């Protein structure tokens, strides 16, 4: 999946306007980064990469860029 496409998917997970996320955002600075967004990230990784993430892996990420590396390692 292209980086831009993945960022748009993450905009949806974080309930942001399409085009908001650029990749360098710090997760804790995003107001909608909560337990529901966590579930959305797990679902997204399973859907687009077949990767079954657990919350501890996601919790170790500090930025959107790191999250993208988990969700889609090829991007």
């Amino acid at each position, binding site marked *: 999946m292209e980086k831009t496409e993945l960022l748009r998917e993450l905009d949806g997970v974080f309930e942001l306007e399409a085009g908001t996320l650029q990749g360098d955002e710090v997760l804790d600075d995003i107001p909608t980064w909560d*337990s*529901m967004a966590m*579930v959305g990230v797990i679902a997204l990784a*399973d859907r687009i990469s077949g990767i079954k993430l*657990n919350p501890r892996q996601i919790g170790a990420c500090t930025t959107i860029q790191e999250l993208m590396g988990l969700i889609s390692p090829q991007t």
Partner: protein
Amino acid sequence: MIRAIEYYLPETVVSTADLAREFPEWSVEKIDAKTGICNRHIAAEGETSSDLAFAAASRLFASSACSPGDIDFVLFCTQSPDYFLPTTACLLQHRLGIPTSAGALDFNLGCSGFVYGLGLAHGLIASGQASNVLLLTGETYSKFLHPRDKSVRTIFGDAGAATWISTGSGAMGPFVYGTDGAGAENLIVPTGGFRRPATAESAMLQQDNSGNFRTGDNLFMNGGEIFSFTLHAVPAAVSALLAKSRLSLEEVDLFVFHQANRYMLDHLRKSLGVPADKFIVHIADCGNTVSSTIPIALHEAQSAGKLRPGMKVMLVGFGVGYSWAAAMVEF
């Protein structure tokens, strides 16, 4: 075979609009999009899981060819029993007028409980120990929830269900089971049992990172961990059951999974490749009623004509424990 199913929902209803007023940071639209739940029925003060199961069984006896005198075994699945002891199934045997020659037992499981109960009933009947089993499920999770914990109040509702299982033409089984107690801490009421008795300290209010409040005496759910568990356990259970049944996914007529929430069900359905018209979703007006979701969904699918005689139906229950089970049932 499953001969008849009835269920009962308590009278008090908490709508999504009610919750949106209590939690203004969440909108009706957001709750609906994530859960697919519009209404949750909540047991009244003093109304217990056995009251809900009793009401469901009373409906069953009123509506089917089965009477209390026919029942020779009562199984009651609950995690909110009336007492530590005696066994709530014994109280229900007496209250329902079931003969004293019947066996009765409680078993403590949550969202996998209905499928486990079918497995127990099947074993009792196949081994000649019983002929007419009354499988009751009843849960009042609402009594475990802190009023300020929106993560669980949006999802769970209370209900009771009664299922009559006896010999007959429809096949039950095969069954597959799974257990992973490593996930116990992710869906738990931490205190109040003998491992950690309720104390003044356990009753202290805590706030989590998502702004939800609860004490140790309340139900805690780690939604991310539960979702992650489900993605591992459910597809594997479906594959194992298909292999054991010597069936392909396409040969199954209907899929009835534990109705956890619509978001999870949609994701599982799509990842498994099950067509929407073969996949029952019935959660909008009752919420996640734990062990009663599958019998409620089966009853409603029958009423709507989606579940018809002769159909091969896959049932999958999964949740607290972790515990999961899947069964192939012919109606």
